[in-house]
């Protein structure tokens, strides 16, 4: 195999992986940046998305229905959780959020096990993207190309949402000074509920998209939450661009690490994180240490 085609396909591979990691990380970082909450249940929402996506696709016969329904339901559950519980904790210190969301992880994980059982479930790749294409005579799955494209579309979408829309403006304003926004007559609680729901929905979106590659299984949450934390730490907590940058970096380290040092791939990710933290304790684009 020639070096150039190999590098190209591996890079594309890494970009599709980066898209999944970005969906996972950006929700967590948005929630943290705006609400100062570390959502430990983030990986569980990712897993929840995969399972709901699987069932919706089974019922409707369409992957695309699952892609819409999964994030919607997961986002609604997230929003309800914020309204019901988290809202009562805003006067407490940050660790209270960490622990309540950990409790939610246990509860949701168990509910998922009760509904879907312990077996891994295979969500079929949509027909359009089930084939392979040849890039420089190297076979490459079209679904992974689609993932990379979806990552770009969602990243641009979120960016435009934050920059251009009224809700986006409110979100940025709330992260700067919640009291002032409140004084201007905006229901800050509603903004927080919305952002928590959106963050959880984004994680679920990642979950549905990942399901055809890794199957929907109970092990998803644990891996996902670690990956999400690593991305948020590397990128800098609360930084949208940082999470994008970190997702790409981590994906490249994972993909090339798995190829060259299969035994140390996981360690490589942590080494990258330690390196970043030693140089910039607040993360690449983070403001605080």
């Amino acid at each position, binding site marked *: 195999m020639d070096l150039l085609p190999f590098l190209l396909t591996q890079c594309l591979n890494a970009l599709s992986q980066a898209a999944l990691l970005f969906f996972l990380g950006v929700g967590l970082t948005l929630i943290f940046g705006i609400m100062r909450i570390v959502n430990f249940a983030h990986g569980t929402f990712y897993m929840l998305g995969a399972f709901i996506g699987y069932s919706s696709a089974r019922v409707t016969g369409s992957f695309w229905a699952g892609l819409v329904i999964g994030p919607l339901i997961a986002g609604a559950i997230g929003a309800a959780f914020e309204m019901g519980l988290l809202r009562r904790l805003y006067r*407490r210190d940050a660790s209270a959020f960490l622990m309540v969301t950990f409790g*939610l992880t*246990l509860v949701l994980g168990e509910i998922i096990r009760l509904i879907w059982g312990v077996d891994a479930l295979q969500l079929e790749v949509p027909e359009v993207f089930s084939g392979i294409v040849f890039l420089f005579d190297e076979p490459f799955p079209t679904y992974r190309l689609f993932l990379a494209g979806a990552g770009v579309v969602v990243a641009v979408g979120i960016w435009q949402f934050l920059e251009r829309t009224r809700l986006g403006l409110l979100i940025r304003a709330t992260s700067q000074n919640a009291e002032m926004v409140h004084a201007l007559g905006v229901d800050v609680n509603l903004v927080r509920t919305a952002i928590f729901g959106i963050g959880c929905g984004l994680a679920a979106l990642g979950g549905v998209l990942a399901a055809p590659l890794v199957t929907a299984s109970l092990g998803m949450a644990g891996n996902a939450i670690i990956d999400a934390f690593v991305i948020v730490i590397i990128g800098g907590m609360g930084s949208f661009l940082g999470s994008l940058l970190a997702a790409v970096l981590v994906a490249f380290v994972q993909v090339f690490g798995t190829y060259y040092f299969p035994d140390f791939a996981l360690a490589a990710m942590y080494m990258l994180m330690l390196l970043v933290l030693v140089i910039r304790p607040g993360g690449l684009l983070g403001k605080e240490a």
Partner: protein
Amino acid sequence: MRAVVCAAIVLAIAPFGLPLFAMTLLTEALILGLLAMSLDLMVGYTRLISFGHAAAYGLGAYTSGYLLLHTSLPLPFAVLAASALAGAVAIGVAWVCTLATGISFSMLTLAFAQLLYAVAFKWTSVTGASDGLAGIPRRAGPFGITMFQTKDGYYYLVLFCLLGAYAFCRSLVRSPFGAVLRGIRENEAKTLSLGYNTRLYKIAVVAVSFALGGLAGALYSPFAGFANTDLLFWLFSGQVLIMVIVGGQGTLHGPILGAAFFMLLEHVLSLYTESWALFFGLIFIGFVMFAPEGIWGLLTRRVRA
């Protein structure tokens, strides 16, 4: 203090009144109590929320298991060596983790525990990978002491370690060192500006916490006869944190109660339902929402009222 002495006496005579299966549960509860208490030094006294305390436990469990399987070291020495190793590793871990503060610190501890988990999976020659270490013996000695080979004898070893660690921690948190920890808990920036090298204090408390958590793990593997990657799993780290919070952080004996409560609840719930984790999560959420002071806090509030 009187309550502690009474509890110690009750625990000391427990083997004479309890059936064997209850003693097994109690021994495990005391081991977990030691682990939870060690985490309380970080969480309750220094506000260092660790989501990776399973690392200390697993490190201790694997080390003592390996030493008992592959060397002729007597059991107490293997346990002590494992505890010392956990403490030594913690110095490096804490040096890195304390680069960050607050929530980033929590995530770094989690990442380190996961790293260790990954290592345990890959380093087959030492850890046995996914099979773990099995058939770990409770070896006799030194000096011809054989009492640790019996269940009751081992129970007394665990009780001795727990009481010793409790006395040590109690003295630590009431000492000048402990006063500085309390300062870090309430206002770290001010503590630093008073001229305390707060990072060094944090590294020291993590090392002590890991050494005691490692001691708990080191006692567990000869007790259970095995050590596997479950001991290093991130969910287990979360469970230990639950024990600390539910029991009552910042009290030392609260987390021991929390661990016992956890064991009992898991045992009772699992008799009736497979989904004990569901109820567990709900109970935990309830404690964080409505009783952040934990079981011990609820008890003492009743007494004071």
